[in-house]
């Protein structure tokens, strides 16, 4: 469907994420976990995806990350059907184009703050090239992002274990954004923060996504945060499998 649309109107922008009649179940014989007719995220969108735990959020993220493949339908990122890529190529595609922020324990404990931010540049030439496009070294670019996310230079070479949870989440955001990936997927990034810091983190994240031109998919069970986004999607509504399971 998506490719057909693109063919009809070449000027139309390619969706960052497109799900087309996606069905997924963990094992043959088990009920479907996901059954999504269609979902498209266009460049520049700020999507708030919410759903209760057990509604298939993790599974959806694994499909978007190319960790899992649907048994039917297609998951496309930037016009590329992930099924058309080998497992290794999907790993590469993920780091080239998508940044992830998780709920907590986002950072590798034995790397410094700066080295954690630089990790995508180690695994992706594309991210490294884009990080240095403005004439910065990757380390300078990482320091710039950390500064934008209110992390003082004094913290950059500290071990990550010395940071507060809120600081750690901002380091994770900097890592997800370095090298300007087209897509940022944040999976409950504020759940471990208190209400005051949640708003602060969200503001910074949205500001940086705007600055870097990154499309954002923000997954949360907390609908109070939804106001800051351009579109709100309830996973329970687009996932037919969840409704069947409940019925």
């Amino acid at each position, binding site marked *: 469907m998506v490719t057909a649309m693109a063919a009809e109107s070449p000027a139309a922008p390619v969706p960052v994420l497109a799900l087309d009649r996606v069905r997924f179940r963990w094992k043959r014989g088990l009920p479907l976990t996901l059954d999504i007719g269609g979902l498209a995220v266009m460049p520049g969108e700020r999507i708030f995806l919410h759903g209760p735990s057990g509604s298939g959020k*993790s599974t959806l*993220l*694994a499909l978007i*990350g190319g*960790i*899992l493949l649907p048994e039917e339908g297609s998951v496309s990122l930037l016009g590329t059907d992930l099924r058309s890529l080998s*497992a*290794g190529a999907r*790993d*590469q595609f*993920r*780091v*080239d184009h998508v940044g*992830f922020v*998780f709920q907590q*324990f*986002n*950072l*590798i*404990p*034995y*790397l410094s703050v700066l*080295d954690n931010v630089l*990790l*995508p540049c*180690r*695994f*992706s030439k594309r991210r490294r090239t884009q990080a240095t496009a403005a004439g910065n070294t990757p380390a300078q670019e990482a320091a710039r992002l950390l500064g934008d996310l209110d992390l003082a230079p004094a913290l950059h070479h500290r071990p990550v274990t010395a940071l507060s949870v809120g600081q750690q989440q901002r380091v994770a955001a900097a*890592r997800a954004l370095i090298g300007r990936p087209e897509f940022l997927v944040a*999976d409950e990034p504020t759940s471990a923060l208190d209400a005051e810091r949640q708003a602060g983190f969200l503001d910074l994240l949205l500001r940086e996504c705007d600055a870097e031109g990154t499309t954002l998919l923000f997954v949360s069970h907390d609908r109070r945060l939804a106001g800051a986004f351009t579109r709100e999607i309830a996973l329970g509504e687009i996932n037919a499998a969840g409704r069947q399971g409940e019925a």
Partner: protein
Amino acid sequence: MANLLSIAIRSAWHRRMTLGLTLVAIALSVALLLGIERIRHDARESFAQSVSGTDLVVGARTSPVQLVLYTVFRIGDATNNIRWDSVKKLAAHPMVAWTVPLSLGDSHRGYAVLGTTTAYFAHFRYGEGRSLAMAQGRRFDGLFEAVIGAEVAAKLGYRVGDRIVLNHGAGEMTGTAHEDKPFVVTGILQRTGTPVDRTIHVTLEAIEAIHLDWAGGAPIPGMAIPQEFVRKFDLTPKSVTGVLVGLHNRAAVFRVQRQVNEFKDEPLLAVMPGVALSQLWGMLDMLERALLLVSGMVVVVSLAGLVAVVLAGLNERRRELALLRSVGAHPGQVLLLLVFEGLLVTAGASVLGIGLLAAASVLLGPLTEAHFGIGLRTLAMSADEWKLVGAVIAAGMAASIVPGLRAYRLSLADGLSPRQ
């Protein structure tokens, strides 16, 4: 690759406490393995170089190994002697440069007594052509003078000028003493690490002299020739146990050997000492291999410890592995990360093990030299030792494939979010 290696280094450093203990265990096993290999090599070397520069050892006909056993190692007894005129004919052979007659059979408190000539000091070589040197005193000159090996001097506490009495026959308790004819120690040889250290050297004539009043291995009743009168007798030996032979030209060794073996006057045997020594060492091969096998097994056990420690720690690292995947690491790279970790630990352990061995050689070398005659002098690694180290590191990497595969499966199953 370089990225993964640097991540592996920092990850390993982060867990340096647990990995460090494993590393020390592997280092000890590496030191043991290399130590055994080195002792094995040094022992073989000093064994093979118990005698050098001698082209042929000649004795009465027996087996080559036996001839070398009693002429070089003073182990066992000669079944037959060779006549003195055969020795003279051998010495007169145009291809023979020098001969050193050896006469064995007596002992002193368990140490062999060797009757020989001063040619022994001139021509006997050990190691890589090293000649005997005096630590104290001088060579024997007179009839009842003795030059003793370093171990004899050290163990029995003898000094130059001491008087010693020889016993008839070999062994600690056997034989009757030649009490009437004591010897004076005139010299002590420097340590050689060869059977020379355990030998008392006297002149051929002295051996003849102390047996003047003996027949058939016992003193002749009623006959006692006092020490001061023996010079009145002809002390030319009637026979000797063996002869060391040096040739003008080593290339002639096979010809001379054949001629000796076909000697008409009496049945003789000539052997090339190197050949007989390696035959002899071949008999000890099993023991040598068993030692190496045991130390190899110690290494395997220590590597099993490494695998166990890394496997046990893997569950706590699932989050780390998932994060690496989220920034683009393939499961294959996760496997490689674990293999690098094994490489780091075993390489570090090898370096530490080599250091430990060097330290042990420096500290314990003098002790082992004194007690076993093995000096552990070499500090440099031999090619064989490097091969062993390489094998240990390769085995460490191979063993790390086990936790590597586990990590591979975990990171495939967990994807971006481990179910903890």
